[in-house]
């Protein structure tokens, strides 16, 4: 009994130390506070986009004109969302999108326009509406375009001005551009044009092919560097490689950051990508597969190894009992 008491003391102090240096310290280190020193809780809205966070941000910044603009913008988005979209009528409008989103891998004003093959499955409906209405506002990077610079997708604003037309295009995308999407495709469509992923052999230009000749490989490398330079010039810095991102950031960070990059990194030029809940799960699945490839093996072998040591301990206990039987 005495030994169990001692064990309880040892376990208590070990767990106390663990709690203080892990969960508690991490909570304190990543606490965000406003100007008054009150803790700001950053919540995930399960990838539903209604602009609430953007409005709160503008309020906090004390920028009256920005607040008015944000409120008006998201009210507009809500109004369009209420309209019944006609997918058939949206086809023509979608034709406009194909002018840039055509898979030609050409950099247009900073980044390569993403492939929209699964846009309906990956992105939230509200977000798609917002993006067509005003790309900079939708992705919450309007601070970047306050002066003379224009969002590379800015032209869409002048091409689609009619709310019903926007509703139709979005209906078309959701109906025709969904379908089964693999985790890797989800990643490639949503993140790849800015972020390299070297452990998945992916660059901003896509999967790196195998070359027979070194000079071909070098020529391709130069193309990648050129693309990265363009992204760098547009974003301000080259966005980080995401190979290890799942292990380097917490799940909560990933969720809230992808939902609204400004929430965790105010002023960042990373746009809100607009992933839906399902889209996020797919992207996360791919990132996990790349940066934590042993998960399946761990889960298969773990119980066997631990089971072995439980059995080992039981046998050891019996041996100990037999050795100590006559001692007291």
């Amino acid at each position, binding site marked *: 009994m005495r030994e169990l008491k001692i064990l309880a003391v040892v376990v208590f102090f070990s767990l106390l130390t663990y709690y203080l*240096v892990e969960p508690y310290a991490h909570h304190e280190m990543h606490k965000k506070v406003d100007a008054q020193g009150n803790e700001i809780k950053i919540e995930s809205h399960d990838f539903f986009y209604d602009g609430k966070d953007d409005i709160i941000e503008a309020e906090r910044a004390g920028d009256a004109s920005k607040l008015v603009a944000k409120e008006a913008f998201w009210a507009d988005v809500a109004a369009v969302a209420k309209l019944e979209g006609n997918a058939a009528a949206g086809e023509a409008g979608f034709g406009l999108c194909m002018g840039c989103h055509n898979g030609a891998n050409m950099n247009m004003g900073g980044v390569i326009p993403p492939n929209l093959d699964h846009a309906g499955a990956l992105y939230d409906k509200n977000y798609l509406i917002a993006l067509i209405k005003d790309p900079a506002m939708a992705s919450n990077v309007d601070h970047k375009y306050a002066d003379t610079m224009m969002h590379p997708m800015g032209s869409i604003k002048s091409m689609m001005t009619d709310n019903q037309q926007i509703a139709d295009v979005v209906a078309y995308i959701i109906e025709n551009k969904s379908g089964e999407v693999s985790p890797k495709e989800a990643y490639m469509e949503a993140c790849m044009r800015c972020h390299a992923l070297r452990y998945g052999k992916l660059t901003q230009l896509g999967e790196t092919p195998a070359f027979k000749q070194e000079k071909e490989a070098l020529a391709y490398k130069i193309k990648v560097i050129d693309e990265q330079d363009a992204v760098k010039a547009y974003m301000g810095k080259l966005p980080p490689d995401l190979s290890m991102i799942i292990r380097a950031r917490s799940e909560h960070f990933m969720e809230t950051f992808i939902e609204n990059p400004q929430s965790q990194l105010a002023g960042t030029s990373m746009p809100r990508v607009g992933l839906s809940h399902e889209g996020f799960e797919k992207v996360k699945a791919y990132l996990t597969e790349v940066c934590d490839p042993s998960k399946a093996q*761990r889960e298969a072998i773990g119980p066997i190894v631990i089971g072995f040591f439980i059995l080992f301990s039981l046998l050891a206990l019996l041996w100990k009992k037999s050795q100590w039987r006559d*001692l007291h």
Partner: protein
Amino acid sequence: MAHFEKAKNLNEWLDQRLAINTLKRVLNTEYWIPKDINFLWAMGMVLAATFGMLVLSGIFLLMYYKPDTNLAFDSVNYTIMSEVGYGWFWRHIHGVGASIVFLIIYIHMFTGIYYGSYKKGRELIWLSGMGLFVAFSAEAFSGYMLPWGQMSYWAGMVITNLFSGGSLELNGLVEWIRGDYVPGDAFLTRFFMLHVLLLPLVIIGLIVLHFGTLRIPHVNNQEGAEIDFKEAADLWKAGKKKESKVIPFSPVFLSKDIFVMGVYFILFFYLVFYNFNFAMDPVNFDPADGLKTPAHIYPEWYFLWSYEILRPFGKDAGLIAFAIAQLALFFLPFIDRSPNVAPAHKRGLFQVWFWVLIIDMIALTAMGKLPPTDPTFAFIGLVSAWTFLALGPILFIITMFEKKIEKGA
């Protein structure tokens, strides 16, 4: 040369040449251990086993790791984790082992303090153990550099900066240690050498010495009783097991050791398979970047208490306090003036002192990780650091007045 006869079996053949029967007797079957000890006395074996796991897993990692600032991060995080069969297994054993070994070292150390196992006659056990603690610390630090992540780089920067000697500004010394103005390739390769060759050799040597120091004063026991080992061993050999106060190391104590080790390995492998992240700082999964300082720089949990003794003071005072913290525990056998070898709960004020020490070290550990910008945390850190520094003189005074305990009851 001795006379050799034809041996009847392998054991005899070996015995003629290596005296293995004598060795077995001296090291195992007639190495006497007090009967009255608890599972805390098995921590030495648990440590030896963990060190074994670290060496074994380290050898496998060594085959694929590249000590080059351009390759190190990916060799650990990609090659070993994705391309080498079961590379992840060895890496997680190594990572978890490196962290958990310190938990066991601390338990082992506090056990020694609680039961007074460092006192007269056993000073060398304590000193060699403290030597091991320092060697393990250096081993852990040099190993932490190797994945070349953000925290590796910046911890390397901060720790080597300590050698500038505060206001002495011995920058030449710092650069000599780094081999460069900032941590770079020369830094990485020399820490690699320290981690895989020199320090493991030092540790192995110290382990042998630590075991050797136990041989004559013998292991302490729960009551701090002075045992006549020869008399007790004779009783045992005469078959009076109940009357004898000792047991042979093998197989009797070993059976307990092995049971404790089994239970420990359940925890160990639970961590390896299901909670390895506890031992791996997320910041270290960002590759080293000399142009981007992490928001908070802090060491691994087992160094936090001494880091916190450094942090609340100014440049020079902090360095002196830090140096005292590193060395203070070495002097424990000489600071404690009490005539008693007894568990803390029998030693009056010493018991209070012991629990204050535990709580103070946990407080220092916690504050060492928390952001110092928070005034409450900074204050608790300062008070805890002063408390730690004061505990030495206090121990000297309270143990000077400690009365001899009447034994035998």
